[in-house]
């Protein structure tokens, strides 16, 4: 397996050098959707994962036509290189990366370290309003080879690698949500039986950049990931598992890796499915 790192990941210096490149579009995606307004990379457009990337009625993605309308309005063309970045160690940027791949965007990359590394480096943020000329974007039909649904998650028990990327306390059932959020949730605590727990954070350095390919290979090998099996990654709502999906498929080149975006919020609410508790 050879690293695809250079094709899918850019560092801050590369980003800085391409700020004025007309074929490169920077897009910020945050959990805290007000972060962009307080300052963003010059020229970057904002993608709101809640209001723009989610259907506002059905719990699902926006459909192909709405995705096309969204990217057209943002001024993103099919042949543009899209560089995604954001806060929370790029969780939601990784989610958007995976989402762009579901709809077949050819050249999409993550900014290594996201907003955090950019800020820690003391690089400039802008509050200027960004407007780009609208495009006529054409999306592909959703690629379900990288998206898992609940029945596949159930069928994966003891058959595929299930990688639960939440924190150990969420995996064990002690916490029901990441600890920056209130814990009052309706679903049960625990994890999908046979899942291994490899917190997304083990794949990242403190400054939010990804660890080296060698470190990442060792991480998943030591955790018991079976290279001969297909893999499904999940977390609570599918954003942290996008980060791990990115590591396994895009950096390490594993084939047949899916993100289960229904994740624990869905699985932990299903009636009658098996749940494992504890470490």
């Amino acid at each position, binding site marked *: 397996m050879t690293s695809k790192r250079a094709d899918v990941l850019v560092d801050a210096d590369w980003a800085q050098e391409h700020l004025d490149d007309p074929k490169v579009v920077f897009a910020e995606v945050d959990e*805290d959707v007000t972060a962009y307004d307080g300052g963003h990379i010059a020229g970057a457009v904002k993608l709101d994962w809640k209001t723009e990337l989610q259907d506002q009625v059905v719990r699902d993605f926006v459909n192909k036509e709405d995705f096309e309308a969204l990217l057209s309005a943002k001024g993103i063309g099919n042949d543009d290189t899209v560089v995604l970045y954001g*806060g*929370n*160690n790029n969780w939601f940027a990784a989610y958007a990366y995976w989402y762009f791949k579901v709809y077949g965007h050819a050249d999409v990359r993550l900014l290594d370290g996201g907003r*955090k590394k950019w*800020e*820690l480096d*003391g690089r400039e943020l802008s509050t200027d309003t960004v407007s780009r000329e609208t495009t006529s974007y054409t999306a592909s039909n959703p690629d379900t080879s990288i998206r898992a649904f609940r029945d596949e998650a159930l069928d994966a028990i003891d058959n595929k690698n299930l990688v639960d990327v939440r*924190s*150990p*306390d969420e995996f064990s059932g*002690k*916490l029901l*949500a*990441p*600890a*920056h*959020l*209130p*814990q*009052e949730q309706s679903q049960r605590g625990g994890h999908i039986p046979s899942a291994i727990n490899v*917190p997304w*954070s*083990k794949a990242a350095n*403190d*400054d939010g950049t990804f660890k080296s390919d060698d470190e990442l290979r060792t991480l998943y090998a030591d955790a018991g990931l079976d290279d001969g099996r297909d893999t499904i990654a999940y977390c609570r709502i599918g954003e942290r598992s996008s980060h791990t999906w990115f590591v396994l498929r895009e950096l390490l080149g594993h084939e047949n890796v899916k993100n289960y975006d229904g994740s624990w919020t869905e699985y932990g609410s299903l009636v009658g499915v098996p749940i494992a508790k504890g470490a």
Partner: protein
Amino acid sequence: MCGAPSQGRAGLEAVDLTRETVIQGCVRRDGAPVAAAYVRLLDGTGEFTAEVQSSAEGQFRFFAAPGDWTVRVLSAAGRGEVSLTCDRGLNEAELVLA
């Protein structure tokens, strides 16, 4: 004391403090609050559990569980770390950057 008033229970009106374990506090350096610092919550084994950025007044808040926790701060202004044992209700953590 933080440069800004303690958050106290502000913003927690809808939170059931008999059930939630809230860890909150302020990041400061030389007595002044530090905004937009990266505040990370680590569990009893040192594993990442959550991360937030401090507010304009240097404040942060986590919703955890009873037990041992470490709060670690990473910022262009410096680093800091504090460990604490928490119970249900409000737990205050003060971070001074060096």
